[in-house]
Protein backbone atom coordinates (compact mmCIF):
# COMPACT_ATOMS: atom_id res chain seq x y z
CA UNK A 1 0.00 0.00 0.00
CA UNK A 2 1.38 3.34 -1.02
CA UNK A 3 -0.34 5.32 1.66
CA UNK A 4 0.61 3.02 4.48
CA UNK A 5 4.26 3.30 3.57
CA UNK A 6 4.13 7.05 4.03
CA UNK A 7 2.81 6.88 7.56
CA UNK A 8 3.82 6.32 11.13
CA UNK A 9 4.90 2.70 11.71
CA UNK A 10 2.02 1.51 13.94
CA UNK A 11 -0.67 2.97 11.72
CA UNK A 12 -1.90 -0.42 10.65
CA UNK A 13 -2.59 -1.40 14.23
CA UNK A 14 -4.72 1.72 14.84
CA UNK A 15 -6.58 2.18 11.60
CA UNK A 16 -9.45 -0.04 10.51
CA UNK A 17 -9.69 -1.63 7.10
CA UNK A 18 -12.82 -0.82 5.13
CA UNK A 19 -14.38 -2.85 2.37
CA UNK A 20 -17.57 -1.63 0.70
CA UNK A 21 -18.88 -4.47 -1.45
CA UNK A 22 -21.48 -3.90 -4.17
CA UNK A 23 -23.55 -1.46 -2.18
CA UNK A 24 -26.73 -0.10 -3.72
CA UNK A 25 -29.08 2.23 -1.91
CA UNK A 26 -32.04 4.45 -2.64
CA UNK A 27 -34.75 6.51 -1.03
CA UNK A 28 -38.49 6.23 -1.24
CA UNK A 29 -39.78 9.33 -2.94
CA UNK A 30 -43.53 9.56 -3.58
CA UNK A 31 -43.85 5.79 -3.65
CA UNK A 32 -40.92 5.24 -5.99
CA UNK A 33 -37.39 4.24 -5.13
CA UNK A 34 -34.92 6.92 -6.15
CA UNK A 35 -31.59 5.15 -6.69
CA UNK A 36 -28.73 6.97 -5.00
CA UNK A 37 -25.86 4.50 -4.97
CA UNK A 38 -25.43 1.81 -7.58
CA UNK A 39 -23.13 -1.14 -7.03
CA UNK A 40 -20.47 0.88 -5.26
CA UNK A 41 -17.27 -0.91 -4.30
CA UNK A 42 -14.57 0.79 -2.26
CA UNK A 43 -11.63 -0.38 -0.20
CA UNK A 44 -9.46 1.46 2.28
CA UNK A 45 -6.38 -0.05 3.86
CA UNK A 46 -5.72 0.52 7.59
CA UNK A 47 -4.47 4.06 8.11
CA UNK A 48 -5.30 5.20 4.62
CA UNK A 49 -6.78 8.65 3.92
CA UNK A 50 -9.41 8.32 1.20
CA UNK A 51 -11.29 11.31 -0.19
CA UNK A 52 -14.59 11.00 -2.06
CA UNK A 53 -15.31 13.55 -4.76
CA UNK A 54 -18.39 13.86 -6.87
CA UNK A 55 -21.10 16.15 -8.19
CA UNK A 56 -23.39 17.72 -5.63
CA UNK A 57 -26.19 15.41 -4.52
CA UNK A 58 -24.63 12.32 -6.06
CA UNK A 59 -24.91 10.22 -2.92
CA UNK A 60 -21.52 10.57 -1.28
CA UNK A 61 -23.01 11.59 2.04
CA UNK A 62 -25.42 8.67 1.82
CA UNK A 63 -22.46 6.33 1.48
CA UNK A 64 -20.92 7.86 4.60
CA UNK A 65 -24.14 7.32 6.56
CA UNK A 66 -24.10 3.68 5.49
CA UNK A 67 -20.45 3.24 6.51
CA UNK A 68 -21.22 4.92 9.86
CA UNK A 69 -24.03 2.41 10.35
CA UNK A 70 -26.72 5.09 10.67
CA UNK A 71 -28.66 3.49 7.82
CA UNK A 72 -28.53 -0.05 6.37
CA UNK A 73 -27.83 -0.48 2.63
CA UNK A 74 -30.61 -1.97 0.51
CA UNK A 75 -28.12 -4.23 -1.18
CA UNK A 76 -24.46 -5.12 -0.64
CA UNK A 77 -22.20 -5.37 2.40
CA UNK A 78 -19.99 -3.03 4.33
CA UNK A 79 -17.15 -4.83 6.04
CA UNK A 80 -14.87 -3.22 8.61
CA UNK A 81 -11.88 -5.22 9.84
CA UNK A 82 -13.37 -8.36 8.37
CA UNK A 83 -16.75 -8.04 10.08
CA UNK A 84 -19.92 -6.82 8.43
CA UNK A 85 -21.22 -3.77 10.25
CA UNK A 86 -24.59 -3.89 11.96
CA UNK A 87 -25.06 -0.35 13.28
CA UNK A 88 -23.22 2.68 14.60
CA UNK A 89 -20.12 2.08 16.68
CA UNK A 90 -17.84 4.53 18.46
CA UNK A 91 -14.85 3.11 16.61
CA UNK A 92 -16.38 4.63 13.45
CA UNK A 93 -17.16 8.24 14.22
CA UNK A 94 -18.65 10.83 11.90
CA UNK A 95 -17.85 14.53 11.79
CA UNK A 96 -20.66 16.27 9.93
CA UNK A 97 -20.63 19.44 7.89
CA UNK A 98 -22.51 21.21 10.68
CA UNK A 99 -20.72 20.86 14.01
CA UNK A 100 -24.09 19.85 15.57
CA UNK A 101 -22.84 20.57 19.06
CA UNK A 102 -25.52 20.19 21.72
CA UNK A 103 -26.33 23.80 22.67
CA UNK A 104 -27.23 22.82 26.24
CA UNK A 105 -23.80 21.35 26.89
CA UNK A 106 -20.51 23.14 27.36
CA UNK A 107 -17.64 22.39 25.00
CA UNK A 108 -16.21 19.96 27.55
CA UNK A 109 -19.53 18.18 28.00
CA UNK A 110 -19.98 17.99 24.24
CA UNK A 111 -16.57 16.40 23.82
CA UNK A 112 -17.38 13.98 26.64
CA UNK A 113 -20.57 12.77 24.93
CA UNK A 114 -19.16 9.51 23.59
CA UNK A 115 -17.43 8.44 26.81
CA UNK A 116 -20.58 9.27 28.77
CA UNK A 117 -22.77 7.26 26.38
CA UNK A 118 -20.42 4.30 26.71
CA UNK A 119 -20.33 4.61 30.50
CA UNK A 120 -16.59 5.28 30.57
CA UNK A 121 -16.56 8.95 31.47
CA UNK A 122 -15.94 8.57 35.19
CA UNK A 123 -12.79 6.56 34.67
CA UNK A 124 -11.47 8.40 31.63
CA UNK A 125 -12.15 12.10 32.18
CA UNK A 126 -8.56 12.90 31.26
CA UNK A 127 -9.18 11.83 27.68
CA UNK A 128 -11.68 14.66 27.22
CA UNK A 129 -9.10 17.21 28.38
CA UNK A 130 -6.53 15.62 26.09
CA UNK A 131 -8.86 15.76 23.08
CA UNK A 132 -9.66 19.42 23.71
CA UNK A 133 -5.96 20.17 24.04
CA UNK A 134 -5.33 18.36 20.77
CA UNK A 135 -7.70 20.67 18.88
CA UNK A 136 -6.58 23.74 20.84
CA UNK A 137 -9.79 24.36 22.76
CA UNK A 138 -8.61 23.82 26.35
CA UNK A 139 -9.34 27.42 27.29
CA UNK A 140 -12.89 27.15 25.97
CA UNK A 141 -13.84 23.98 27.83
CA UNK A 142 -16.49 25.81 29.87
CA UNK A 143 -17.91 27.82 26.95
CA UNK A 144 -21.29 27.10 25.42
CA UNK A 145 -21.54 26.44 21.66
CA UNK A 146 -23.23 29.78 20.92
CA UNK A 147 -20.11 31.50 22.19
CA UNK A 148 -17.84 29.79 19.64
CA UNK A 149 -16.86 30.83 16.13
CA UNK A 150 -17.55 28.46 13.24
CA UNK A 151 -13.99 27.13 13.20
CA UNK A 152 -13.92 26.61 16.96
CA UNK A 153 -17.26 24.80 16.85
CA UNK A 154 -15.97 22.46 14.16
CA UNK A 155 -12.82 21.79 16.18
CA UNK A 156 -15.01 20.99 19.18
CA UNK A 157 -16.92 18.53 16.98
CA UNK A 158 -13.58 17.02 15.97
CA UNK A 159 -12.60 16.66 19.63
CA UNK A 160 -15.93 14.96 20.33
CA UNK A 161 -15.04 12.42 17.63
CA UNK A 162 -11.38 11.95 18.61
CA UNK A 163 -12.19 11.26 22.28
CA UNK A 164 -13.52 7.88 21.16
CA UNK A 165 -10.17 6.91 19.67
CA UNK A 166 -11.82 6.12 16.34
CA UNK A 167 -10.20 3.56 14.07
CA UNK A 168 -12.17 4.94 11.14
CA UNK A 169 -12.88 8.67 11.02
CA UNK A 170 -15.73 9.58 8.69
CA UNK A 171 -15.71 13.18 7.58
CA UNK A 172 -18.72 14.60 5.75
CA UNK A 173 -17.47 17.87 4.29
CA UNK A 174 -16.17 18.85 7.71
CA UNK A 175 -14.63 22.09 6.50
CA UNK A 176 -17.39 22.96 4.03
CA UNK A 177 -18.91 25.83 5.97
CA UNK A 178 -15.74 27.44 7.25
CA UNK A 179 -14.24 30.65 5.91
CA UNK A 180 -11.24 30.11 3.62
CA UNK A 181 -8.53 31.06 6.12
CA UNK A 182 -9.91 28.85 8.89
CA UNK A 183 -10.25 26.15 6.30
CA UNK A 184 -6.58 26.26 5.35
CA UNK A 185 -5.56 26.07 9.01
CA UNK A 186 -7.92 23.16 9.67
CA UNK A 187 -6.64 21.24 6.65
CA UNK A 188 -3.18 21.36 8.20
CA UNK A 189 -4.56 20.26 11.56
CA UNK A 190 -6.42 17.35 10.02
CA UNK A 191 -3.25 16.08 8.34
CA UNK A 192 -1.33 16.43 11.58
CA UNK A 193 -3.98 14.57 13.61
CA UNK A 194 -4.21 11.80 11.05
CA UNK A 195 -0.45 11.34 11.01
CA UNK A 196 -0.29 11.38 14.80
CA UNK A 197 -3.17 9.00 15.38
CA UNK A 198 -2.95 6.72 12.37
CA UNK A 199 -6.68 6.14 11.97
CA UNK A 200 -8.26 5.44 8.60
CA UNK A 201 -10.08 8.42 7.12
CA UNK A 202 -12.99 8.48 4.71
CA UNK A 203 -13.74 12.06 3.74
CA UNK A 204 -16.37 13.57 1.46
CA UNK A 205 -15.52 16.97 0.08
CA UNK A 206 -16.56 19.29 -2.72
CA UNK A 207 -13.16 20.86 -2.87
CA UNK A 208 -10.85 19.15 -5.38
CA UNK A 209 -7.79 20.92 -4.02
CA UNK A 210 -8.64 19.87 -0.45
CA UNK A 211 -9.04 16.26 -1.51
CA UNK A 212 -5.67 16.24 -3.28
CA UNK A 213 -3.94 18.06 -0.45
CA UNK A 214 -5.08 15.69 2.29
CA UNK A 215 -5.82 12.28 0.83
CA UNK A 216 -3.65 9.38 -0.22
CA UNK A 217 -6.34 8.30 -2.62
CA UNK A 218 -9.11 10.25 -4.30
CA UNK A 219 -12.20 8.36 -5.45
CA UNK A 220 -14.31 10.19 -8.01
CA UNK A 221 -18.02 9.43 -8.20
CA UNK A 222 -20.37 9.84 -11.15
CA UNK A 223 -23.64 11.72 -11.08
CA UNK A 224 -26.59 10.09 -9.28
CA UNK A 225 -26.95 7.16 -8.96
CA UNK A 226 -23.35 7.29 -7.84
CA UNK A 227 -20.82 4.84 -9.23
CA UNK A 228 -17.08 4.87 -8.78
CA UNK A 229 -15.74 6.67 -11.80
CA UNK A 230 -12.05 6.82 -11.02
CA UNK A 231 -9.67 5.92 -8.20
CA UNK A 232 -6.54 8.07 -8.16
CA UNK A 233 -3.50 7.63 -5.95
CA UNK A 234 -1.87 10.85 -4.82
CA UNK A 235 1.75 9.73 -4.46
CA UNK A 236 3.16 12.71 -2.60
CA UNK A 237 4.45 12.89 0.98
CA UNK A 238 2.81 15.06 3.63
CA UNK A 239 2.72 17.93 4.39
CA UNK A 240 1.98 18.89 0.82
CA UNK A 241 2.26 22.20 -0.86
CA UNK A 242 -0.78 23.36 -2.72
CA UNK A 243 1.10 24.58 -5.79
CA UNK A 244 3.20 21.45 -6.27
CA UNK A 245 3.20 20.75 -10.05
CA UNK A 246 2.05 17.16 -9.50
CA UNK A 247 -1.00 18.39 -7.54
CA UNK A 248 -1.87 20.88 -10.25
CA UNK A 249 -1.62 18.07 -12.81
CA UNK A 250 -3.88 15.81 -10.73
CA UNK A 251 -6.30 18.64 -10.16
CA UNK A 252 -6.69 19.10 -13.91
CA UNK A 253 -7.31 15.35 -14.31
CA UNK A 254 -9.95 15.29 -11.58
CA UNK A 255 -11.77 18.34 -12.88
CA UNK A 256 -11.78 16.62 -16.26
CA UNK A 257 -13.34 13.55 -14.72
CA UNK A 258 -16.01 15.71 -13.14
CA UNK A 259 -16.70 17.24 -16.53
CA UNK A 260 -15.36 20.63 -15.54
CA UNK A 261 -12.19 20.76 -17.65
CA UNK A 262 -13.55 23.57 -19.77
CA UNK A 263 -13.88 25.84 -16.78
CA UNK A 264 -10.29 25.48 -15.75
Amino acid at each position, binding site marked *: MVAAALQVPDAEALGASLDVQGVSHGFLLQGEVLPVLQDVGLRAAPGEFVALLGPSGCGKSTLLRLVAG*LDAPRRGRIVVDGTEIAG*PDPSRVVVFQDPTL*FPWRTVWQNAA*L*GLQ*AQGRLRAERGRVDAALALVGLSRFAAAYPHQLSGGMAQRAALARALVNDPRLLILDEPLGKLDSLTRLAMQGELTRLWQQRGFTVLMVTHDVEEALLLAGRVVVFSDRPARVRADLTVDLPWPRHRDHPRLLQLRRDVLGLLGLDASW
Partner: protein
Amino acid sequence: MSFAEAEAAPNLFRADAPRARPLLVVAGVAWLALAVFVFAVPDAQDLERTELFGGIAVAVAAAAVLAWRFGRTKLLSGVGRLAPWLLFGALALAAWEALTAKTDYLPLPFFAAPQAILEVYTDDWPRLLDSLWHSLWLLLRGYAIGGALGFTLGVGLGCSRTISYWAQPGLRLIGPLPAAAWVPLAFFVFPTSASASVFLVALATFFPVAVLTWSGVASVASAYYDVARTVGAKRWFLVRHVSIPAALPHVFVGLFMGLGASFAVLVVAEMLGVKSGLGWYLQWAQGWAAYANMYAALLLMAVMCSALITLLFRLRDRLLAWQQGMVKW
Protein backbone atom coordinates in the same frame (compact mmCIF):
# COMPACT_ATOMS: atom_id res chain seq x y z
CA MET B 1 -14.62 58.66 14.20
CA SER B 2 -14.36 62.38 14.91
CA PHE B 3 -12.89 63.82 18.07
CA ALA B 4 -16.29 64.87 19.28
CA GLU B 5 -17.57 61.32 19.00
CA ALA B 6 -14.50 59.97 20.76
CA GLU B 7 -15.12 62.37 23.60
CA ALA B 8 -18.76 61.42 23.84
CA ALA B 9 -18.22 57.67 23.77
CA PRO B 10 -17.21 57.18 27.43
CA ASN B 11 -20.55 58.66 28.51
CA LEU B 12 -22.19 55.48 27.30
CA PHE B 13 -20.49 53.72 30.15
CA ARG B 14 -20.86 56.48 32.67
CA ALA B 15 -24.63 56.30 32.32
CA ASP B 16 -24.57 52.93 34.05
CA ALA B 17 -22.98 54.30 37.22
CA PRO B 18 -25.39 55.14 40.08
CA ARG B 19 -26.38 58.77 39.93
CA ALA B 20 -28.49 61.09 42.01
CA ARG B 21 -32.21 60.91 41.25
CA PRO B 22 -33.83 64.25 42.10
CA LEU B 23 -37.19 62.71 41.20
CA LEU B 24 -36.92 60.66 44.40
CA VAL B 25 -37.17 63.89 46.40
CA VAL B 26 -40.21 64.97 44.40
CA ALA B 27 -41.80 61.58 45.11
CA GLY B 28 -40.91 61.92 48.80
CA VAL B 29 -42.60 65.32 48.95
CA ALA B 30 -45.65 63.88 47.18
CA TRP B 31 -45.96 61.10 49.76
CA LEU B 32 -45.57 63.61 52.56
CA ALA B 33 -48.34 65.69 51.00
CA LEU B 34 -50.48 62.58 50.84
CA ALA B 35 -49.86 61.98 54.53
CA VAL B 36 -50.84 65.57 55.38
CA PHE B 37 -54.00 65.17 53.29
CA VAL B 38 -54.89 61.90 55.02
CA PHE B 39 -54.31 63.32 58.52
CA ALA B 40 -55.68 66.83 58.07
CA VAL B 41 -58.90 66.31 56.12
CA PRO B 42 -61.57 64.55 58.21
CA ASP B 43 -63.03 61.29 56.91
CA ALA B 44 -66.51 61.43 55.42
CA GLN B 45 -66.85 57.68 55.99
CA ASP B 46 -66.61 55.65 59.15
CA LEU B 47 -63.03 54.31 58.91
CA GLU B 48 -60.64 52.83 61.46
CA ARG B 49 -57.16 52.79 59.93
CA THR B 50 -56.74 56.36 58.74
CA GLU B 51 -53.79 56.98 61.10
CA LEU B 52 -52.04 53.84 59.95
CA PHE B 53 -52.49 54.83 56.31
CA GLY B 54 -51.08 58.29 57.01
CA GLY B 55 -48.21 56.74 58.94
CA ILE B 56 -47.34 54.48 56.03
CA ALA B 57 -47.34 57.50 53.70
CA VAL B 58 -44.88 59.26 56.02
CA ALA B 59 -42.68 56.16 56.07
CA VAL B 60 -42.64 55.92 52.27
CA ALA B 61 -41.78 59.62 52.05
CA ALA B 62 -38.87 59.12 54.44
CA ALA B 63 -37.69 56.05 52.53
CA ALA B 64 -37.75 57.95 49.22
CA VAL B 65 -35.66 60.77 50.64
CA LEU B 66 -33.21 58.32 52.22
CA ALA B 67 -32.92 56.47 48.90
CA TRP B 68 -32.09 59.78 47.23
CA ARG B 69 -29.52 60.63 49.90
CA PHE B 70 -27.76 57.23 49.75
CA GLY B 71 -28.64 56.45 46.13
CA ARG B 72 -24.99 56.22 45.10
CA THR B 73 -24.35 53.16 47.23
CA LYS B 74 -24.52 49.85 45.48
CA LEU B 75 -27.35 48.55 47.66
CA LEU B 76 -29.81 51.34 46.85
CA SER B 77 -28.77 52.19 43.30
CA GLY B 78 -31.72 50.25 41.88
CA VAL B 79 -34.32 52.17 43.90
CA GLY B 80 -33.87 55.26 41.74
CA ARG B 81 -35.56 53.54 38.84
CA LEU B 82 -38.75 53.35 40.93
CA ALA B 83 -38.99 57.10 41.40
CA PRO B 84 -41.57 57.72 38.62
CA TRP B 85 -43.73 54.89 39.93
CA LEU B 86 -43.44 56.23 43.50
CA LEU B 87 -44.62 59.62 42.37
CA PHE B 88 -47.47 58.16 40.37
CA GLY B 89 -48.46 55.98 43.32
CA ALA B 90 -48.76 58.97 45.64
CA LEU B 91 -50.94 60.85 43.16
CA ALA B 92 -53.16 57.84 42.48
CA LEU B 93 -53.63 57.10 46.17
CA ALA B 94 -54.48 60.73 46.87
CA ALA B 95 -57.14 60.68 44.16
CA TRP B 96 -58.54 57.39 45.45
CA GLU B 97 -58.56 58.68 49.03
CA ALA B 98 -60.26 61.90 47.97
CA LEU B 99 -63.02 60.13 46.03
CA THR B 100 -63.78 57.60 48.78
CA ALA B 101 -62.77 58.31 52.37
CA LYS B 102 -62.72 62.10 52.28
CA THR B 103 -65.79 62.95 50.17
CA ASP B 104 -67.80 59.72 50.03
CA TYR B 105 -68.25 60.49 46.30
CA LEU B 106 -68.03 56.88 45.02
CA PRO B 107 -70.88 54.70 46.26
CA LEU B 108 -70.35 52.29 49.14
CA PRO B 109 -70.02 49.33 49.52
CA PHE B 110 -68.65 48.75 46.00
CA PHE B 111 -65.78 51.23 46.29
CA ALA B 112 -63.64 50.79 49.38
CA ALA B 113 -61.26 53.42 50.71
CA PRO B 114 -57.52 52.57 50.86
CA GLN B 115 -57.60 52.38 54.65
CA ALA B 116 -60.60 50.03 54.49
CA ILE B 117 -58.50 47.53 52.54
CA LEU B 118 -55.65 48.14 54.95
CA GLU B 119 -58.03 47.29 57.76
CA VAL B 120 -58.77 43.90 56.18
CA TYR B 121 -55.09 43.03 56.31
CA THR B 122 -54.62 44.24 59.89
CA ASP B 123 -57.80 42.67 61.27
CA ASP B 124 -58.55 39.60 59.14
CA TRP B 125 -55.02 38.42 58.39
CA PRO B 126 -55.34 35.03 60.14
CA ARG B 127 -58.20 34.03 57.87
CA LEU B 128 -56.47 35.46 54.76
CA LEU B 129 -53.23 33.70 55.57
CA ASP B 130 -55.06 30.43 56.17
CA SER B 131 -56.84 30.84 52.82
CA LEU B 132 -53.58 31.63 51.06
CA TRP B 133 -51.95 28.56 52.55
CA HIS B 134 -54.82 26.28 51.55
CA SER B 135 -54.84 27.64 48.00
CA LEU B 136 -51.09 27.25 47.67
CA TRP B 137 -51.01 23.74 49.07
CA LEU B 138 -53.83 22.58 46.82
CA LEU B 139 -52.30 24.24 43.78
CA LEU B 140 -48.83 22.86 44.37
CA ARG B 141 -50.05 19.27 44.86
CA GLY B 142 -52.17 19.37 41.72
CA TYR B 143 -49.53 21.18 39.69
CA ALA B 144 -46.78 18.78 40.69
CA ILE B 145 -48.88 15.71 39.87
CA GLY B 146 -50.21 17.12 36.59
CA GLY B 147 -46.83 18.48 35.53
CA ALA B 148 -45.00 15.23 36.26
CA LEU B 149 -47.59 13.09 34.49
CA GLY B 150 -47.81 15.48 31.53
CA PHE B 151 -44.04 15.57 31.14
CA THR B 152 -43.76 11.79 31.32
CA LEU B 153 -46.54 11.21 28.81
CA GLY B 154 -45.14 13.93 26.52
CA VAL B 155 -41.73 12.28 26.46
CA GLY B 156 -43.40 8.91 25.87
CA LEU B 157 -45.46 10.30 23.00
CA GLY B 158 -42.38 11.77 21.40
CA CYS B 159 -40.11 8.76 21.86
CA SER B 160 -42.28 5.68 21.50
CA ARG B 161 -44.55 4.77 18.62
CA THR B 162 -46.56 2.39 20.78
CA ILE B 163 -47.29 5.01 23.41
CA SER B 164 -48.07 7.53 20.69
CA TYR B 165 -50.51 5.13 19.00
CA TRP B 166 -52.45 4.32 22.17
CA ALA B 167 -52.32 7.63 24.01
CA GLN B 168 -52.90 10.08 21.18
CA PRO B 169 -56.62 9.55 20.56
CA GLY B 170 -57.48 9.94 24.24
CA LEU B 171 -55.30 12.99 24.61
CA ARG B 172 -56.80 14.57 21.52
CA LEU B 173 -60.36 13.96 22.60
CA ILE B 174 -60.16 14.80 26.28
CA GLY B 175 -57.26 17.25 26.37
CA PRO B 176 -58.96 20.29 24.84
CA LEU B 177 -61.90 19.99 27.26
CA PRO B 178 -61.57 22.82 29.83
CA ALA B 179 -60.76 21.33 33.23
CA ALA B 180 -63.62 23.36 34.73
CA ALA B 181 -66.06 21.17 32.79
CA TRP B 182 -65.05 18.30 35.06
CA VAL B 183 -66.04 20.17 38.22
CA PRO B 184 -69.50 18.59 38.74
CA LEU B 185 -68.22 15.08 38.04
CA ALA B 186 -65.07 15.50 40.13
CA PHE B 187 -66.96 16.67 43.21
CA PHE B 188 -69.30 13.73 42.83
CA VAL B 189 -66.66 11.04 42.23
CA PHE B 190 -63.93 12.07 44.66
CA PRO B 191 -64.41 11.43 48.39
CA THR B 192 -63.36 14.91 49.47
CA SER B 193 -63.63 18.27 47.78
CA ALA B 194 -59.89 18.75 48.38
CA SER B 195 -58.95 15.60 46.45
CA ALA B 196 -61.39 16.59 43.70
CA SER B 197 -59.71 19.98 43.45
CA VAL B 198 -56.24 18.45 43.31
CA PHE B 199 -57.48 16.27 40.47
CA LEU B 200 -58.88 19.27 38.61
CA VAL B 201 -55.72 21.33 39.00
CA ALA B 202 -53.63 18.34 37.92
CA LEU B 203 -55.83 17.84 34.86
CA ALA B 204 -55.59 21.51 33.89
CA THR B 205 -51.80 21.37 34.16
CA PHE B 206 -51.44 18.00 32.52
CA PHE B 207 -52.72 18.80 29.03
CA PRO B 208 -50.53 21.77 28.04
CA VAL B 209 -47.46 20.18 29.60
CA ALA B 210 -48.04 16.88 27.79
CA VAL B 211 -48.69 18.47 24.39
CA LEU B 212 -45.79 20.90 24.53
CA THR B 213 -43.34 18.30 25.83
CA TRP B 214 -44.46 16.04 23.01
CA SER B 215 -44.04 18.73 20.37
CA GLY B 216 -40.68 19.63 21.88
CA VAL B 217 -39.41 16.05 21.65
CA ALA B 218 -40.87 15.66 18.16
CA SER B 219 -39.07 18.75 16.90
CA VAL B 220 -35.59 17.71 18.03
CA ALA B 221 -33.29 17.79 15.00
CA SER B 222 -32.47 14.28 13.81
CA ALA B 223 -28.83 15.34 13.42
CA TYR B 224 -28.55 15.40 17.22
CA TYR B 225 -29.60 11.75 17.36
CA ASP B 226 -27.16 10.86 14.55
CA VAL B 227 -24.28 12.47 16.39
CA ALA B 228 -25.10 10.71 19.65
CA ARG B 229 -25.66 7.35 17.95
CA THR B 230 -22.32 7.40 16.12
CA VAL B 231 -20.46 7.86 19.41
CA GLY B 232 -22.25 4.91 20.99
CA ALA B 233 -25.49 6.22 22.54
CA LYS B 234 -28.25 3.69 23.11
CA ARG B 235 -31.98 4.33 23.32
CA TRP B 236 -32.26 5.45 26.95
CA PHE B 237 -29.25 7.67 26.64
CA LEU B 238 -30.88 9.34 23.62
CA VAL B 239 -34.08 9.96 25.58
CA ARG B 240 -32.33 11.19 28.70
CA HIS B 241 -29.50 13.22 27.14
CA VAL B 242 -30.83 14.28 23.75
CA SER B 243 -34.65 14.31 23.62
CA ILE B 244 -35.32 15.77 27.05
CA PRO B 245 -32.71 18.54 27.18
CA ALA B 246 -33.47 19.55 23.60
CA ALA B 247 -37.20 19.68 24.36
CA LEU B 248 -36.82 21.60 27.63
CA PRO B 249 -37.58 25.06 26.16
CA HIS B 250 -40.92 23.69 24.92
CA VAL B 251 -41.54 21.97 28.25
CA PHE B 252 -41.26 25.30 30.04
CA VAL B 253 -43.78 26.89 27.70
CA GLY B 254 -46.11 24.02 28.63
CA LEU B 255 -45.40 24.48 32.35
CA PHE B 256 -46.14 28.20 32.00
CA MET B 257 -49.43 27.58 30.21
CA GLY B 258 -50.29 24.83 32.68
CA LEU B 259 -49.72 27.20 35.59
CA GLY B 260 -52.13 29.72 34.09
CA ALA B 261 -54.75 27.03 33.50
CA SER B 262 -54.28 25.72 37.04
CA PHE B 263 -54.95 29.18 38.54
CA ALA B 264 -58.23 29.34 36.66
CA VAL B 265 -59.43 25.93 37.74
CA LEU B 266 -58.24 26.49 41.31
CA VAL B 267 -60.44 29.54 41.74
CA VAL B 268 -63.43 27.80 40.15
CA ALA B 269 -62.98 24.75 42.38
CA GLU B 270 -62.64 26.87 45.51
CA MET B 271 -65.70 28.90 44.67
CA LEU B 272 -67.83 25.85 43.99
CA GLY B 273 -66.90 23.24 46.52
CA VAL B 274 -63.83 23.70 48.67
CA LYS B 275 -64.45 25.31 52.06
CA SER B 276 -61.13 27.14 52.24
CA GLY B 277 -58.69 29.01 50.04
CA LEU B 278 -58.66 32.43 48.47
CA GLY B 279 -61.40 31.55 45.96
CA TRP B 280 -63.63 30.56 48.85
CA TYR B 281 -62.70 33.77 50.69
CA LEU B 282 -63.77 35.82 47.68
CA GLN B 283 -67.10 34.05 47.54
CA TRP B 284 -67.58 34.40 51.26
CA ALA B 285 -66.72 38.11 51.24
CA GLN B 286 -69.17 38.69 48.42
CA GLY B 287 -71.88 36.97 50.47
CA TRP B 288 -71.40 39.58 53.19
CA ALA B 289 -71.05 42.40 50.67
CA ALA B 290 -67.61 42.95 52.19
CA TYR B 291 -66.01 44.49 49.13
CA ALA B 292 -62.93 45.67 50.93
CA ASN B 293 -62.25 42.04 51.86
CA MET B 294 -62.71 41.03 48.23
CA TYR B 295 -60.21 43.60 47.01
CA ALA B 296 -57.76 42.54 49.69
CA ALA B 297 -58.11 38.87 48.69
CA LEU B 298 -57.85 39.66 45.00
CA LEU B 299 -54.64 41.58 45.58
CA LEU B 300 -53.23 38.75 47.64
CA MET B 301 -54.21 36.26 44.91
CA ALA B 302 -52.55 38.40 42.26
CA VAL B 303 -49.35 38.51 44.31
CA MET B 304 -49.46 34.73 44.77
CA CYS B 305 -49.95 33.99 41.04
CA SER B 306 -47.33 36.47 39.97
CA ALA B 307 -44.85 35.12 42.52
CA LEU B 308 -45.40 31.55 41.29
CA ILE B 309 -44.84 32.56 37.68
CA THR B 310 -41.72 34.45 38.72
CA LEU B 311 -40.46 31.30 40.46
CA LEU B 312 -41.11 29.23 37.36
CA PHE B 313 -39.22 31.71 35.17
CA ARG B 314 -36.31 31.75 37.63
CA LEU B 315 -36.14 27.97 37.44
CA ARG B 316 -36.23 28.12 33.66
CA ASP B 317 -33.48 30.75 33.55
CA ARG B 318 -31.31 28.46 35.65
CA LEU B 319 -31.94 25.34 33.60
CA LEU B 320 -31.87 27.03 30.22
CA ALA B 321 -28.93 29.35 30.80
CA TRP B 322 -27.51 28.08 27.50
CA GLN B 323 -30.39 29.64 25.57
CA GLN B 324 -30.29 33.16 24.26
CA GLY B 325 -32.98 35.76 23.82
CA MET B 326 -35.45 34.55 26.43
CA VAL B 327 -38.43 36.58 27.64
CA LYS B 328 -37.45 38.07 30.99
CA TRP B 329 -40.13 38.17 33.68
